[in-house]
């Protein structure tokens, strides 16, 4: 994992050097108050006067203490985590505020995706090549090819504007501060409903196709025939015996899908105006806010590595053969 982290940091570092000019000109261009003095300070902070290799080394050193610097925008907020100034005022970090929002929406969405996709995958596998399978699988395959943001846009319009069932943007209503605690909960729920439900509908296509294929590989194996021969009910055979094995590769798939989910949050959050990592990144990219861009790239990649690690551990936990070292 350590070499991976170094590789990732190298790429995020190199990106900073892709842009024409040095980064202080970019800061000056959207923050006219920047004086020559503060630009000098910034050059010093990023060690722009030193050779690139030294710059990278120093950047890595700061990164290892989780110091991602402060935003280029006028408010100069810390990129990663809160800091205390001399008077004891706490300024919250940008990633610190955005990350929980994105994590919550993605994890809730992923749960919902699994709850919907696994039964669909199992059903189509048990009805393999019958008309029910053909119908459902065709629909799923079309959904799989649809651009997620298009479906999101249309559903958002239909559910939010035409039917007026749910608010379509942000996390709170305008009068949020005046609400009673219970109203706040329902208000939050209403605002989160579309951003969680719609992406999980578009995401379930891939997962259910995957589950179906996994089930098809398992359903015709000998131990399933044995289970049937023992006289177990079809439900137990399918959901207890077959599904457990078919779900194993799904763990790996979920681990691999994390970068996609994080990356996809840019589009999802821009549609629903959610103040999460994707929105933060998008705004930072438009403003060429380098510390924020590099911070999010690094944190996003670290999350992916963490996700893969969790997936590996979960795999070992779920598969006794791996746990006991029977298969590598």
């Amino acid at each position, binding site marked *: 994992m350590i*070499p*991976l982290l170094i*590789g*990732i940091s190298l*790429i*995020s570092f190199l*990106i900073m050097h*892709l*842009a024409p000019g040095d980064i202080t000109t970019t800061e000056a261009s959207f923050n006219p108050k920047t004086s020559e003095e503060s630009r000098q300070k910034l050059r010093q902070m990023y060690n722009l006067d030193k050779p690139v290799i030294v710059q990278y080394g120093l950047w890595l050193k700061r990164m290892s203490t989780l110091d991602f610097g402060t935003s280029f925008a006028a408010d100069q907020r810390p990129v990663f985590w809160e800091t205390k100034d001399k008077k004891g005022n706490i300024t919250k970090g940008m990633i610190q505020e955005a990350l929980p929002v994105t994590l919550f929406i993605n994890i809730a969405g992923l749960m919902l995706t699994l709850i919907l996709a696994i039964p669909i995958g199992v059903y189509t596998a048990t009805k393999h090549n019958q008309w029910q399978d053909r119908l459902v699988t065709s629909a799923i*395959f*079309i959904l*799989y*090819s*649809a*651009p997620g*943001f*298009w*479906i999101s*846009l*249309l559903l958002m*319009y239909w559910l939010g*504007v035409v039917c007026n069932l749910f608010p379509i943007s942000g996390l709170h209503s305008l009068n949020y501060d005046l609400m009673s605690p219970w109203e706040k909960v329902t208000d939050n729920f209403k605002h989160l409903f579309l951003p969680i439900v719609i992406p999980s509908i578009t995401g379930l296509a891939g997962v259910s196709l995957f589950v179906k294929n996994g089930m098809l590989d398992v359903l015709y194996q000998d131990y399933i025939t044995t289970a049937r021969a023992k006289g177990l009910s079809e439900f137990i055979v399918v959901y207890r015996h077959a599904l457990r094995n078919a779900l194993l590769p799904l763990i790996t798939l979920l681990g*691999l899908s994390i*970068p*996609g989910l*994080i*990356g*996809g949050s*840019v*589009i999802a959050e*821009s*549609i629903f105006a959610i103040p999460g990592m994707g929105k933060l*990144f*998008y705004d930072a*990219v*438009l403003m*060429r806010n380098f510390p924020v*861009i590099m911070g*999010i*790239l690094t944190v*996003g*990649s670290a999350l*992916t*590595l963490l996700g*893969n690690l969790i997936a590996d551990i979960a795999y070992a936990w779920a598969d006794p053969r791996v746990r006991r070292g029977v298969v590598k």
Partner: protein
Amino acid sequence: MNLNLIKKSLSNPLALIGFLIILFIFFVAIFAPLLSTYDPDAIDVKAILLPPSFEHLMGTDGLGRDVFSRMLYGARISLLVGFVAVGISTFIGILLGAISGFYRGWIDIVIMRMVDVMLSIPTFFLILAVIAFLSPSILNIMIVIGLTSWMGVTRLVRAEFLSLRDREFVLGAQTLGANDLRLIFIHLLPNSLTPIIVSSVLGVASAVLVESGLSFLGLGVQPPQASWGNILTDGKEYIQFAWWLSFFPGLAILITVLGYNLFGEGLRDALDPRKAK
């Protein structure tokens, strides 16, 4: 890959449908100037946000431009981006995968770590950042999508090469004095083409999706040039008054991606000896 295999894969009805869809998109893109009923960039203030009619088959947009004509030209962008991006990623993938699988050893370890690094960076973030710094142009978009999507092909080619490297026909050729280049390009590569082709076809589908996502965020193909993604972005602004602006481009993307997915999956099924009847 010979004619027989193509025939076999097109006998799969789904692959055939996919193939016909792809042909259709090609046809539309090539003959866009003949099929279009208006100049795609002509602004007509007297015809703003008209619903679909016989005059404007898919309505008009906020500047009075004919959506149908813009859609036809948008097909060119999506084909171009899809094929060039996949061309780049397949080229890199074959190169790195071949080196990795053929020579093994430390170079294999280095390349595989590179793959792991690229796989753990959220690619869409990377693409966005690079595009924003280099200014969004079609060329940059194609290159960046290509440069961030070679990992799958690399792993595929490497795996094929690893399994073929010690087969008798390769060892035989080596004994007869074939050099490394000959072994790689004449003996190993042609025998690993099938999975590469399948993954390229599926790769076009995902490149089309990425391009439309970028354009949707305003960091893709820049107006006034029409792409399905940026027509859809305009549609987002007008969604309350003009559904056709967001409906048709999304549908076009769906049909195109569906075409590549059907063809790719059909090809895989037809060429997979386990699934062949």
